[in-house]
Protein backbone atom coordinates (compact mmCIF):
# COMPACT_ATOMS: atom_id res chain seq x y z
CA UNK A 1 0.00 0.00 0.00
CA UNK A 2 2.72 2.41 0.98
CA UNK A 3 4.77 1.47 -2.05
CA UNK A 4 1.80 2.14 -4.31
CA UNK A 5 1.26 5.57 -2.78
CA UNK A 6 4.90 6.40 -3.27
CA UNK A 7 4.80 5.30 -6.86
CA UNK A 8 1.79 7.51 -7.45
CA UNK A 9 3.53 10.48 -5.88
CA UNK A 10 6.57 9.93 -8.04
CA UNK A 11 4.41 9.61 -11.11
CA UNK A 12 2.50 12.82 -10.55
CA UNK A 13 5.77 14.57 -9.86
CA UNK A 14 7.13 13.32 -13.14
CA UNK A 15 3.94 14.22 -14.99
CA UNK A 16 4.01 17.73 -13.58
CA UNK A 17 7.47 18.39 -14.97
CA UNK A 18 6.57 16.58 -18.18
CA UNK A 19 3.65 18.97 -18.69
CA UNK A 20 5.96 21.92 -18.19
CA UNK A 21 8.37 20.56 -20.79
CA UNK A 22 5.44 20.13 -23.18
CA UNK A 23 4.39 23.73 -22.68
CA UNK A 24 7.92 24.98 -23.24
CA UNK A 25 8.45 22.92 -26.39
CA UNK A 26 5.08 23.93 -27.83
CA UNK A 27 5.72 27.55 -26.88
CA UNK A 28 9.03 27.59 -28.74
CA UNK A 29 7.45 25.87 -31.74
CA UNK A 30 4.65 28.42 -31.74
CA UNK A 31 7.13 31.29 -31.63
CA UNK A 32 9.31 29.94 -34.42
CA UNK A 33 6.34 29.40 -36.71
CA UNK A 34 4.48 32.59 -35.87
CA UNK A 35 7.34 35.09 -35.67
CA UNK A 36 8.23 35.25 -39.39
CA UNK A 37 4.57 35.78 -40.24
CA UNK A 38 4.23 38.39 -37.53
CA UNK A 39 7.38 40.13 -38.66
CA UNK A 40 6.07 40.47 -42.23
CA UNK A 41 3.00 42.21 -40.84
CA UNK A 42 4.82 44.68 -38.58
CA UNK A 43 7.47 45.40 -41.20
CA UNK A 44 4.82 46.19 -43.79
CA UNK A 45 3.39 49.00 -41.65
CA UNK A 46 6.69 50.42 -40.39
CA UNK A 47 8.93 53.11 -41.77
CA UNK A 48 11.28 51.72 -44.46
CA UNK A 49 14.38 53.17 -42.86
CA UNK A 50 13.55 51.65 -39.49
CA UNK A 51 12.92 48.23 -41.04
CA UNK A 52 16.05 48.07 -43.14
CA UNK A 53 18.24 49.32 -40.33
CA UNK A 54 16.98 46.59 -38.01
CA UNK A 55 15.08 48.66 -35.45
CA UNK A 56 11.83 46.81 -36.13
CA UNK A 57 11.80 43.54 -34.23
CA UNK A 58 8.77 43.06 -32.03
CA UNK A 59 6.40 45.92 -32.85
CA UNK A 60 5.90 48.46 -35.69
CA UNK A 61 8.18 51.49 -35.55
CA UNK A 62 6.98 54.84 -36.99
CA UNK A 63 3.71 53.41 -38.23
CA UNK A 64 2.93 54.28 -41.83
CA UNK A 65 1.15 52.88 -44.86
CA UNK A 66 3.59 54.09 -47.50
CA UNK A 67 4.42 50.53 -48.54
CA UNK A 68 0.76 49.80 -49.18
CA UNK A 69 0.40 53.02 -51.18
CA UNK A 70 3.27 51.88 -53.32
CA UNK A 71 1.60 48.49 -53.78
CA UNK A 72 -1.65 50.15 -54.85
CA UNK A 73 0.25 52.06 -57.51
CA UNK A 74 1.80 48.90 -58.87
CA UNK A 75 -0.45 48.23 -61.86
CA UNK A 76 1.00 44.92 -62.97
CA UNK A 77 0.27 43.41 -59.60
CA UNK A 78 -3.43 44.17 -59.90
CA UNK A 79 -3.60 42.79 -63.42
CA UNK A 80 -2.01 39.65 -62.01
CA UNK A 81 -4.56 39.66 -59.22
CA UNK A 82 -7.41 39.88 -61.69
CA UNK A 83 -5.95 37.07 -63.82
CA UNK A 84 -5.49 34.85 -60.80
CA UNK A 85 -9.08 35.46 -59.72
CA UNK A 86 -10.31 34.41 -63.16
CA UNK A 87 -8.00 31.38 -63.38
CA UNK A 88 -8.84 30.26 -59.86
CA UNK A 89 -12.59 30.54 -60.38
CA UNK A 90 -12.63 28.65 -63.69
CA UNK A 91 -10.12 26.04 -62.57
CA UNK A 92 -11.98 25.38 -59.34
CA UNK A 93 -15.34 24.99 -61.10
CA UNK A 94 -13.89 22.63 -63.69
CA UNK A 95 -11.78 20.63 -61.29
CA UNK A 96 -14.46 20.15 -58.62
CA UNK A 97 -17.12 19.16 -61.17
CA UNK A 98 -14.91 16.54 -62.79
CA UNK A 99 -13.66 15.24 -59.45
CA UNK A 100 -17.08 14.85 -57.85
CA UNK A 101 -18.58 13.17 -60.90
CA UNK A 102 -15.71 10.71 -61.17
CA UNK A 103 -15.70 10.14 -57.42
CA UNK A 104 -19.40 9.35 -57.44
CA UNK A 105 -19.12 6.94 -60.35
CA UNK A 106 -16.26 5.08 -58.66
CA UNK A 107 -18.19 4.83 -55.41
CA UNK A 108 -21.04 2.84 -57.01
CA UNK A 109 -20.84 -0.90 -56.86
CA UNK A 110 -22.86 -1.16 -60.08
CA UNK A 111 -19.81 0.12 -61.95
CA UNK A 112 -18.38 -2.72 -63.99
CA UNK A 113 -14.63 -2.63 -64.57
CA UNK A 114 -13.90 -0.57 -61.50
CA UNK A 115 -10.55 -2.22 -60.88
CA UNK A 116 -9.33 -1.55 -64.38
CA UNK A 117 -10.44 2.08 -64.19
CA UNK A 118 -8.78 2.53 -60.79
CA UNK A 119 -5.54 1.02 -62.05
CA UNK A 120 -5.68 3.29 -65.11
CA UNK A 121 -6.02 6.27 -62.79
CA UNK A 122 -3.61 5.34 -60.01
CA UNK A 123 -0.82 4.50 -62.44
CA UNK A 124 -0.66 8.17 -63.43
CA UNK A 125 0.07 9.04 -59.79
CA UNK A 126 3.31 7.10 -59.85
CA UNK A 127 4.56 7.42 -63.37
CA UNK A 128 4.43 10.30 -65.78
CA UNK A 129 5.77 11.31 -69.13
CA UNK A 130 7.62 14.17 -67.55
CA UNK A 131 7.97 17.82 -68.34
CA UNK A 132 9.26 17.74 -71.89
CA UNK A 133 6.73 15.33 -73.46
CA UNK A 134 3.92 17.27 -71.75
CA UNK A 135 5.33 20.52 -73.06
CA UNK A 136 5.62 19.13 -76.58
CA UNK A 137 2.03 17.88 -76.37
CA UNK A 138 0.70 21.26 -75.27
CA UNK A 139 2.68 22.86 -78.05
CA UNK A 140 1.36 20.49 -80.68
CA UNK A 141 -2.17 21.19 -79.45
CA UNK A 142 -1.46 24.85 -80.19
CA UNK A 143 -2.12 25.86 -76.60
CA UNK A 144 1.10 27.77 -75.91
CA UNK A 145 0.23 31.28 -74.83
CA UNK A 146 -3.42 30.34 -74.42
CA UNK A 147 -4.73 30.91 -70.86
CA UNK A 148 -7.02 27.89 -71.28
CA UNK A 149 -3.98 25.72 -70.61
CA UNK A 150 -3.67 27.21 -67.12
CA UNK A 151 -7.25 26.22 -66.36
CA UNK A 152 -7.11 22.72 -67.82
CA UNK A 153 -3.69 21.49 -66.68
CA UNK A 154 -3.91 19.80 -63.30
CA UNK A 155 -7.69 20.01 -63.19
CA UNK A 156 -7.91 16.24 -62.76
CA UNK A 157 -6.23 15.10 -59.58
CA UNK A 158 -6.47 11.38 -58.98
CA UNK A 159 -5.78 11.80 -55.29
CA UNK A 160 -8.78 14.12 -54.94
CA UNK A 161 -10.96 11.71 -56.91
CA UNK A 162 -10.04 8.96 -54.45
CA UNK A 163 -10.91 11.26 -51.55
CA UNK A 164 -14.29 12.01 -53.14
CA UNK A 165 -14.94 8.33 -53.81
CA UNK A 166 -14.07 7.30 -50.27
CA UNK A 167 -16.19 10.07 -48.81
CA UNK A 168 -19.27 9.25 -50.91
CA UNK A 169 -18.83 5.54 -50.30
CA UNK A 170 -18.75 6.00 -46.55
CA UNK A 171 -21.53 8.57 -46.22
CA UNK A 172 -24.10 7.46 -48.79
CA UNK A 173 -25.12 3.85 -48.38
CA UNK A 174 -25.71 1.78 -51.47
CA UNK A 175 -29.20 0.91 -50.25
CA UNK A 176 -30.15 4.54 -50.70
CA UNK A 177 -29.47 4.35 -54.40
CA UNK A 178 -31.11 0.94 -54.69
CA UNK A 179 -34.25 2.34 -53.09
CA UNK A 180 -34.19 5.41 -55.31
CA UNK A 181 -33.60 3.40 -58.44
CA UNK A 182 -36.65 1.28 -57.72
CA UNK A 183 -38.64 4.44 -57.99
CA UNK A 184 -37.03 5.04 -61.35
CA UNK A 185 -34.36 7.48 -60.27
CA UNK A 186 -31.28 7.37 -62.49
CA UNK A 187 -27.69 8.09 -61.54
CA UNK A 188 -27.74 11.65 -62.85
CA UNK A 189 -30.73 12.67 -60.80
CA UNK A 190 -29.49 10.77 -57.77
CA UNK A 191 -26.14 12.55 -58.03
CA UNK A 192 -27.64 16.02 -58.22
CA UNK A 193 -30.57 15.70 -55.83
CA UNK A 194 -29.19 13.28 -53.24
CA UNK A 195 -25.39 13.02 -53.32
CA UNK A 196 -24.50 16.70 -53.74
CA UNK A 197 -26.92 18.03 -51.10
CA UNK A 198 -25.62 15.42 -48.65
CA UNK A 199 -21.94 16.26 -49.19
CA UNK A 200 -21.34 19.92 -48.31
CA UNK A 201 -18.17 19.05 -46.38
CA UNK A 202 -16.74 17.14 -49.34
CA UNK A 203 -17.55 19.97 -51.73
CA UNK A 204 -15.96 22.50 -49.37
CA UNK A 205 -12.76 20.43 -49.16
CA UNK A 206 -12.56 20.02 -52.91
CA UNK A 207 -13.22 23.70 -53.61
CA UNK A 208 -10.57 24.70 -51.09
CA UNK A 209 -7.93 22.28 -52.33
CA UNK A 210 -8.49 23.38 -55.92
CA UNK A 211 -8.64 27.10 -55.14
CA UNK A 212 -5.47 27.10 -53.03
CA UNK A 213 -3.58 25.08 -55.64
CA UNK A 214 -4.44 27.46 -58.43
CA UNK A 215 -3.98 30.60 -56.34
CA UNK A 216 -0.45 29.58 -55.47
CA UNK A 217 0.64 28.20 -58.83
CA UNK A 218 3.03 29.83 -61.27
CA UNK A 219 4.99 27.04 -62.95
CA UNK A 220 2.54 26.39 -65.79
CA UNK A 221 2.23 30.11 -66.39
CA UNK A 222 6.00 30.43 -66.64
CA UNK A 223 6.25 27.61 -69.15
CA UNK A 224 3.11 27.97 -71.23
CA UNK A 225 2.22 31.66 -71.17
CA UNK A 226 4.27 34.31 -72.89
CA UNK A 227 2.40 37.60 -72.52
CA UNK A 228 2.82 39.67 -69.40
CA UNK A 229 -0.83 40.78 -69.26
CA UNK A 230 -1.94 37.15 -68.93
CA UNK A 231 0.41 36.29 -66.07
CA UNK A 232 -1.10 35.24 -62.74
CA UNK A 233 -0.34 36.93 -59.45
CA UNK A 234 2.41 34.53 -58.40
CA UNK A 235 4.45 35.30 -61.52
CA UNK A 236 4.29 39.01 -60.77
CA UNK A 237 5.18 38.29 -57.15
CA UNK A 238 8.15 36.31 -58.32
CA UNK A 239 9.47 39.35 -60.17
CA UNK A 240 9.00 41.57 -57.13
CA UNK A 241 10.17 39.45 -54.22
CA UNK A 242 12.24 36.55 -55.50
CA UNK A 243 14.42 37.86 -58.28
CA UNK A 244 17.94 38.80 -57.38
CA UNK A 245 17.15 42.49 -57.87
CA UNK A 246 17.41 42.99 -54.10
CA UNK A 247 20.99 41.95 -53.98
CA UNK A 248 21.96 44.09 -56.92
CA UNK A 249 20.10 47.08 -55.52
CA UNK A 250 21.94 46.80 -52.25
CA UNK A 251 25.24 46.89 -54.05
CA UNK A 252 24.10 49.83 -56.17
CA UNK A 253 23.08 51.67 -53.00
CA UNK A 254 26.63 51.92 -51.79
CA UNK A 255 27.60 53.61 -55.01
CA UNK A 256 24.62 55.91 -55.44
CA UNK A 257 23.47 58.54 -52.97
CA UNK A 258 20.78 59.14 -50.36
CA UNK A 259 17.91 60.14 -52.68
CA UNK A 260 18.09 56.93 -54.55
CA UNK A 261 18.45 55.15 -51.23
CA UNK A 262 15.10 56.37 -49.90
CA UNK A 263 13.25 55.13 -52.94
CA UNK A 264 15.12 51.84 -52.88
CA UNK A 265 14.33 51.29 -49.20
CA UNK A 266 10.65 51.83 -49.87
CA UNK A 267 10.89 49.20 -52.58
CA UNK A 268 12.28 46.90 -49.86
CA UNK A 269 9.37 47.32 -47.44
CA UNK A 270 6.94 47.19 -50.33
CA UNK A 271 7.83 43.53 -50.52
CA UNK A 272 6.35 42.92 -47.10
CA UNK A 273 3.14 44.69 -48.12
CA UNK A 274 3.02 42.70 -51.35
CA UNK A 275 3.29 39.44 -49.41
CA UNK A 276 0.40 40.48 -47.20
CA UNK A 277 -1.79 41.59 -50.09
CA UNK A 278 -1.14 38.40 -52.05
CA UNK A 279 -1.62 35.96 -49.18
CA UNK A 280 -4.45 37.75 -47.43
CA UNK A 281 -7.42 36.11 -49.15
CA UNK A 282 -6.23 32.63 -48.24
CA UNK A 283 -4.91 33.44 -44.77
CA UNK A 284 -8.16 35.20 -43.87
CA UNK A 285 -10.55 32.45 -44.91
CA UNK A 286 -8.28 29.64 -43.77
CA UNK A 287 -9.04 29.60 -40.02
CA UNK A 288 -12.76 29.38 -40.75
CA UNK A 289 -12.29 26.49 -43.10
CA UNK A 290 -9.59 24.75 -41.13
CA UNK A 291 -11.85 21.94 -40.00
CA UNK A 292 -12.71 21.13 -43.62
CA UNK A 293 -9.07 20.98 -44.64
CA UNK A 294 -8.32 18.71 -41.75
CA UNK A 295 -11.29 16.56 -42.64
CA UNK A 296 -10.07 16.32 -46.22
CA UNK A 297 -6.70 15.02 -45.12
CA UNK A 298 -8.32 12.51 -42.82
CA UNK A 299 -10.61 11.17 -45.54
CA UNK A 300 -7.66 10.93 -47.86
CA UNK A 301 -5.69 8.95 -45.34
CA UNK A 302 -8.30 6.21 -45.06
CA UNK A 303 -6.97 3.10 -46.64
CA UNK A 304 -8.77 2.11 -49.79
Amino acid at each position, binding site marked *: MVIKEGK*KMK*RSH*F*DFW*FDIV*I*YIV*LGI*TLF*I*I*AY*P*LYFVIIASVSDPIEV*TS*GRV*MFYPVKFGLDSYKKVLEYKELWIGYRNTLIYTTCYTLLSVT*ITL*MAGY*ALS*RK*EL*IGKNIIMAYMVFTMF*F*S*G*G*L*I*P*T*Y*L*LVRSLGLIGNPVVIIILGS*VNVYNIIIARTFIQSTIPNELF*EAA*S*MDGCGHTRFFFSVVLPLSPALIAVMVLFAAVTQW*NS*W*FNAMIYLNRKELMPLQMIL*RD*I*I*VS*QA*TFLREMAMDVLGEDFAREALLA*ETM*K*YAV*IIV*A*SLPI*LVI*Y*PFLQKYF*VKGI*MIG*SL*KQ
Partner: protein
Amino acid sequence: MFRGRFPIHRRKSYWLQVLENYELYLFLSPALLYLLIFHYFPMMGIVIAFKDFTPSLGIWGSPWVGLRHFIRFFNMPMFSVILKNTLTLSIYELLAGFPLPIILALILNSCPSLQFKKVVQTVSYAPHFISTVVLVGMINIFFAPSYGIVGHILRKFHLLEGPLFILNDPAWFPHLYVWSGIWANLGWNSIIYLGALTGVDLNLYEAAEIDGANKLQKIIHIDLPALLPTIVVLFILNAGRIMSIGFEKVFLMQNAMNLSTSEVISTYVYKTGIGQGSYSLATAIGLFNSVINFAMLIMVNKIAKKLGETSLW
Protein backbone atom coordinates in the same frame (compact mmCIF):
# COMPACT_ATOMS: atom_id res chain seq x y z
CA MET B 1 -41.07 -8.76 -57.07
CA PHE B 2 -38.29 -6.54 -58.41
CA ARG B 3 -39.86 -4.03 -60.71
CA GLY B 4 -37.05 -1.49 -60.38
CA ARG B 5 -34.23 -0.95 -62.79
CA PHE B 6 -31.73 -2.97 -60.81
CA PRO B 7 -33.11 -6.33 -59.81
CA ILE B 8 -30.64 -8.33 -57.82
CA HIS B 9 -30.29 -11.16 -60.35
CA ARG B 10 -26.78 -12.49 -60.21
CA ARG B 11 -26.89 -13.98 -63.66
CA LYS B 12 -27.44 -10.74 -65.55
CA SER B 13 -24.87 -10.18 -68.28
CA TYR B 14 -22.10 -7.69 -67.80
CA TRP B 15 -22.92 -5.74 -70.90
CA LEU B 16 -26.48 -5.29 -69.77
CA GLN B 17 -25.30 -3.88 -66.48
CA VAL B 18 -22.86 -1.59 -68.23
CA LEU B 19 -25.68 -0.39 -70.44
CA GLU B 20 -28.00 0.18 -67.53
CA ASN B 21 -25.38 2.27 -65.77
CA TYR B 22 -24.15 4.16 -68.83
CA GLU B 23 -24.44 7.41 -66.84
CA LEU B 24 -21.61 6.33 -64.56
CA TYR B 25 -19.30 6.01 -67.55
CA LEU B 26 -20.37 9.42 -68.78
CA PHE B 27 -19.55 10.79 -65.33
CA LEU B 28 -16.10 9.24 -65.54
CA SER B 29 -15.37 10.24 -69.10
CA PRO B 30 -13.98 13.78 -68.50
CA ALA B 31 -11.46 12.48 -65.97
CA LEU B 32 -10.48 9.50 -68.11
CA LEU B 33 -10.16 11.66 -71.19
CA TYR B 34 -8.00 14.17 -69.35
CA LEU B 35 -5.68 11.44 -68.09
CA LEU B 36 -5.48 9.97 -71.58
CA ILE B 37 -4.52 13.28 -73.16
CA PHE B 38 -2.33 14.84 -70.49
CA HIS B 39 -0.80 11.75 -68.88
CA TYR B 40 -0.86 8.81 -71.27
CA PHE B 41 -0.11 10.71 -74.50
CA PRO B 42 2.98 12.30 -72.90
CA MET B 43 4.03 8.83 -71.75
CA MET B 44 4.15 7.82 -75.40
CA GLY B 45 6.15 10.96 -76.01
CA ILE B 46 8.88 9.37 -73.91
CA VAL B 47 10.06 7.60 -77.07
CA ILE B 48 11.88 10.78 -78.03
CA ALA B 49 14.37 9.89 -75.31
CA PHE B 50 15.52 7.20 -77.73
CA LYS B 51 15.30 9.40 -80.80
CA ASP B 52 16.90 12.54 -82.11
CA PHE B 53 13.85 14.74 -81.91
CA THR B 54 13.54 17.67 -84.26
CA PRO B 55 10.23 19.55 -84.18
CA SER B 56 9.96 19.65 -88.00
CA LEU B 57 10.07 15.83 -88.24
CA GLY B 58 7.70 15.25 -85.33
CA ILE B 59 7.87 12.57 -82.67
CA TRP B 60 7.40 9.63 -85.02
CA GLY B 61 9.42 10.94 -87.94
CA SER B 62 12.59 11.66 -85.97
CA PRO B 63 15.38 9.07 -86.32
CA TRP B 64 16.09 6.46 -83.63
CA VAL B 65 19.37 6.78 -81.80
CA GLY B 66 18.99 4.09 -79.17
CA LEU B 67 20.57 4.90 -75.82
CA ARG B 68 22.81 7.68 -77.08
CA HIS B 69 21.19 10.39 -74.95
CA PHE B 70 21.42 8.30 -71.82
CA ILE B 71 25.08 7.55 -72.42
CA ARG B 72 25.72 11.22 -73.10
CA PHE B 73 23.99 12.12 -69.84
CA PHE B 74 25.92 9.56 -67.79
CA ASN B 75 29.18 10.89 -69.18
CA MET B 76 28.41 14.53 -68.47
CA PRO B 77 30.32 16.20 -65.64
CA MET B 78 26.92 17.53 -64.52
CA PHE B 79 25.57 14.00 -64.04
CA SER B 80 27.26 13.28 -60.74
CA VAL B 81 26.62 16.81 -59.50
CA ILE B 82 22.86 16.85 -60.02
CA LEU B 83 22.50 13.27 -58.83
CA LYS B 84 24.39 14.08 -55.66
CA ASN B 85 22.43 17.29 -55.08
CA THR B 86 19.08 15.61 -55.65
CA LEU B 87 19.91 12.79 -53.25
CA THR B 88 21.41 15.11 -50.64
CA LEU B 89 18.35 17.33 -50.58
CA SER B 90 15.79 14.57 -50.46
CA ILE B 91 17.58 12.39 -47.92
CA TYR B 92 18.25 15.41 -45.73
CA GLU B 93 14.60 16.41 -46.08
CA LEU B 94 13.42 12.92 -45.23
CA LEU B 95 15.68 12.50 -42.20
CA ALA B 96 14.96 15.93 -40.74
CA GLY B 97 11.42 16.47 -41.94
CA PHE B 98 9.86 13.06 -41.40
CA PRO B 99 10.21 12.53 -37.61
CA LEU B 100 9.35 16.09 -36.55
CA PRO B 101 5.62 16.05 -37.42
CA ILE B 102 5.31 12.76 -35.53
CA ILE B 103 6.93 14.28 -32.47
CA LEU B 104 4.75 17.38 -32.73
CA ALA B 105 1.62 15.24 -32.97
CA LEU B 106 2.64 13.22 -29.90
CA ILE B 107 3.34 16.37 -27.92
CA LEU B 108 0.14 18.08 -29.03
CA ASN B 109 -1.81 14.98 -28.16
CA SER B 110 -0.55 14.99 -24.59
CA CYS B 111 -0.84 18.75 -24.12
CA PRO B 112 -2.98 19.28 -21.02
CA SER B 113 -4.59 22.51 -22.23
CA LEU B 114 -6.99 22.00 -25.13
CA GLN B 115 -7.06 25.72 -25.85
CA PHE B 116 -3.31 26.03 -26.14
CA LYS B 117 -3.26 22.96 -28.34
CA LYS B 118 -5.80 24.58 -30.65
CA VAL B 119 -3.80 27.79 -30.91
CA VAL B 120 -0.63 25.90 -31.79
CA GLN B 121 -2.50 23.86 -34.39
CA THR B 122 -4.12 26.85 -36.08
CA VAL B 123 -0.87 28.79 -36.25
CA SER B 124 1.25 25.88 -37.37
CA TYR B 125 -1.07 24.97 -40.28
CA ALA B 126 -1.04 28.53 -41.62
CA PRO B 127 2.38 28.54 -43.38
CA HIS B 128 1.25 25.58 -45.46
CA PHE B 129 -1.05 27.90 -47.42
CA ILE B 130 1.66 30.38 -48.26
CA SER B 131 2.70 29.97 -51.86
CA THR B 132 6.16 28.75 -52.79
CA VAL B 133 6.89 32.11 -54.36
CA VAL B 134 6.07 33.94 -51.14
CA LEU B 135 8.00 31.42 -49.04
CA VAL B 136 11.13 31.83 -51.14
CA GLY B 137 10.55 35.58 -51.20
CA MET B 138 10.47 35.57 -47.41
CA ILE B 139 13.72 33.62 -47.26
CA ASN B 140 15.37 36.13 -49.60
CA ILE B 141 14.12 39.09 -47.61
CA PHE B 142 14.92 37.68 -44.16
CA PHE B 143 18.41 36.55 -45.10
CA ALA B 144 19.28 39.56 -47.25
CA PRO B 145 22.94 40.52 -46.65
CA SER B 146 22.59 43.83 -44.83
CA TYR B 147 18.83 44.58 -44.57
CA GLY B 148 17.61 41.15 -43.53
CA ILE B 149 16.20 40.57 -40.08
CA VAL B 150 18.37 37.50 -39.55
CA GLY B 151 21.52 39.51 -40.11
CA HIS B 152 20.26 42.22 -37.77
CA ILE B 153 19.57 39.73 -35.01
CA LEU B 154 22.95 38.03 -35.42
CA ARG B 155 24.74 41.38 -35.37
CA LYS B 156 22.85 42.40 -32.27
CA PHE B 157 24.23 39.42 -30.41
CA HIS B 158 27.67 40.01 -31.96
CA LEU B 159 27.58 36.69 -33.72
CA LEU B 160 28.23 38.36 -37.02
CA GLU B 161 30.31 41.22 -38.35
CA GLY B 162 29.29 42.89 -41.60
CA PRO B 163 26.81 41.51 -44.11
CA LEU B 164 25.34 38.03 -44.02
CA PHE B 165 26.28 35.94 -47.04
CA ILE B 166 24.09 32.91 -46.62
CA LEU B 167 21.87 33.26 -49.69
CA ASN B 168 24.76 32.97 -52.09
CA ASP B 169 26.68 30.34 -50.19
CA PRO B 170 26.37 26.88 -51.76
CA ALA B 171 27.07 25.21 -48.42
CA TRP B 172 24.03 26.87 -46.87
CA PHE B 173 21.56 26.04 -49.62
CA PRO B 174 20.53 22.55 -48.38
CA HIS B 175 19.92 23.86 -44.86
CA LEU B 176 17.84 26.80 -46.07
CA TYR B 177 15.88 24.54 -48.38
CA VAL B 178 15.12 21.81 -45.85
CA TRP B 179 14.43 23.95 -42.80
CA SER B 180 12.23 26.44 -44.60
CA GLY B 181 10.23 23.44 -45.81
CA ILE B 182 9.95 22.13 -42.28
CA TRP B 183 8.81 25.55 -41.08
CA ALA B 184 6.09 25.62 -43.73
CA ASN B 185 4.80 22.07 -43.40
CA LEU B 186 5.52 20.85 -39.89
CA GLY B 187 2.01 21.54 -38.59
CA TRP B 188 0.25 20.40 -41.71
CA ASN B 189 2.11 17.10 -41.81
CA SER B 190 1.23 16.42 -38.19
CA ILE B 191 -2.52 16.44 -38.93
CA ILE B 192 -2.55 12.91 -40.21
CA TYR B 193 -0.82 11.60 -37.07
CA LEU B 194 -3.11 13.57 -34.80
CA GLY B 195 -6.02 11.99 -36.61
CA ALA B 196 -4.62 8.52 -36.04
CA LEU B 197 -4.15 9.36 -32.34
CA THR B 198 -7.81 10.29 -31.91
CA GLY B 199 -8.57 6.68 -32.76
CA VAL B 200 -6.75 5.37 -29.69
CA ASP B 201 -9.02 3.58 -27.22
CA LEU B 202 -9.27 5.72 -24.09
CA ASN B 203 -9.48 2.59 -21.94
CA LEU B 204 -5.84 1.95 -22.75
CA TYR B 205 -4.79 5.15 -21.01
CA GLU B 206 -6.91 4.30 -18.02
CA ALA B 207 -5.44 0.82 -17.77
CA ALA B 208 -1.94 2.24 -18.08
CA GLU B 209 -2.64 4.72 -15.33
CA ILE B 210 -3.78 1.97 -13.00
CA ASP B 211 -0.56 0.17 -13.74
CA GLY B 212 1.32 3.29 -12.69
CA ALA B 213 2.48 4.52 -16.08
CA ASN B 214 3.59 8.13 -16.33
CA LYS B 215 2.89 10.38 -19.32
CA LEU B 216 6.08 9.55 -21.15
CA GLN B 217 5.45 5.83 -20.75
CA LYS B 218 1.94 6.28 -22.11
CA ILE B 219 3.35 7.99 -25.17
CA ILE B 220 5.93 5.28 -25.74
CA HIS B 221 3.70 2.29 -25.08
CA ILE B 222 0.29 3.48 -26.32
CA ASP B 223 0.58 6.42 -28.72
CA LEU B 224 3.65 5.36 -30.64
CA PRO B 225 2.40 1.84 -31.44
CA ALA B 226 -0.92 3.35 -32.51
CA LEU B 227 0.91 5.55 -35.00
CA LEU B 228 3.13 2.84 -36.39
CA PRO B 229 0.96 1.79 -39.37
CA THR B 230 0.53 5.42 -40.45
CA ILE B 231 4.24 6.02 -40.05
CA VAL B 232 5.10 3.04 -42.23
CA VAL B 233 2.69 4.00 -45.01
CA LEU B 234 3.88 7.60 -45.08
CA PHE B 235 7.49 6.53 -44.95
CA ILE B 236 6.94 4.32 -47.99
CA LEU B 237 5.32 7.18 -49.86
CA ASN B 238 8.12 9.56 -48.94
CA ALA B 239 10.89 7.13 -49.71
CA GLY B 240 9.30 6.48 -53.08
CA ARG B 241 9.65 10.16 -53.85
CA ILE B 242 13.29 10.28 -52.89
CA MET B 243 14.45 11.29 -56.37
CA SER B 244 11.61 13.67 -57.15
CA ILE B 245 12.70 16.77 -55.32
CA GLY B 246 10.08 19.36 -56.21
CA PHE B 247 11.02 21.66 -59.02
CA GLU B 248 9.37 24.85 -57.87
CA LYS B 249 11.11 25.71 -54.64
CA VAL B 250 14.59 24.67 -55.75
CA PHE B 251 14.22 26.62 -58.96
CA LEU B 252 13.09 29.75 -57.14
CA MET B 253 15.90 29.48 -54.60
CA GLN B 254 18.59 29.06 -57.22
CA ASN B 255 21.01 31.82 -58.04
CA ALA B 256 24.20 32.00 -60.03
CA MET B 257 26.31 31.55 -56.91
CA ASN B 258 24.68 28.50 -55.31
CA LEU B 259 24.22 26.31 -58.40
CA SER B 260 26.91 23.86 -57.34
CA THR B 261 24.57 22.52 -54.63
CA SER B 262 21.19 23.70 -55.92
CA GLU B 263 21.09 22.24 -59.42
CA VAL B 264 18.90 19.12 -59.22
CA ILE B 265 17.56 16.73 -61.83
CA SER B 266 14.22 18.48 -62.36
CA THR B 267 15.72 21.94 -62.75
CA TYR B 268 18.35 20.56 -65.08
CA VAL B 269 15.67 18.89 -67.20
CA TYR B 270 13.90 22.22 -67.46
CA LYS B 271 17.01 24.09 -68.46
CA THR B 272 18.20 21.57 -71.04
CA GLY B 273 14.73 20.98 -72.44
CA ILE B 274 12.75 24.18 -72.42
CA GLY B 275 15.74 26.47 -72.04
CA GLN B 276 18.13 25.04 -74.64
CA GLY B 277 15.68 23.05 -76.73
CA SER B 278 17.52 19.73 -76.30
CA TYR B 279 14.22 17.91 -75.99
CA SER B 280 15.51 14.38 -76.41
CA LEU B 281 18.31 14.72 -73.90
CA ALA B 282 15.99 16.35 -71.33
CA THR B 283 13.39 13.63 -71.80
CA ALA B 284 16.05 10.97 -71.31
CA ILE B 285 17.14 12.59 -68.05
CA GLY B 286 13.53 12.87 -66.90
CA LEU B 287 12.87 9.23 -67.78
CA PHE B 288 15.96 8.10 -65.87
CA ASN B 289 14.52 9.95 -62.87
CA SER B 290 11.00 8.51 -63.18
CA VAL B 291 12.26 4.95 -63.52
CA ILE B 292 14.39 5.23 -60.40
CA ASN B 293 11.46 6.71 -58.52
CA PHE B 294 9.16 3.94 -59.57
CA ALA B 295 11.73 1.32 -58.65
CA MET B 296 12.27 2.95 -55.26
CA LEU B 297 8.57 2.90 -54.50
CA ILE B 298 8.25 -0.77 -55.33
CA MET B 299 11.39 -1.67 -53.41
CA VAL B 300 10.44 0.16 -50.23
CA ASN B 301 6.98 -1.33 -50.38
CA LYS B 302 8.48 -4.81 -50.66
CA ILE B 303 10.67 -4.17 -47.65
CA ALA B 304 7.68 -2.99 -45.65
CA LYS B 305 5.78 -6.12 -46.60
CA LYS B 306 8.70 -8.32 -45.54
CA LEU B 307 8.78 -6.62 -42.17
CA GLY B 308 5.18 -7.67 -41.75
CA GLU B 309 3.90 -4.14 -41.41
CA THR B 310 1.34 -2.33 -43.47
CA SER B 311 2.07 -1.83 -47.13
CA LEU B 312 0.54 0.26 -49.86
CA TRP B 313 -0.79 -2.62 -51.90
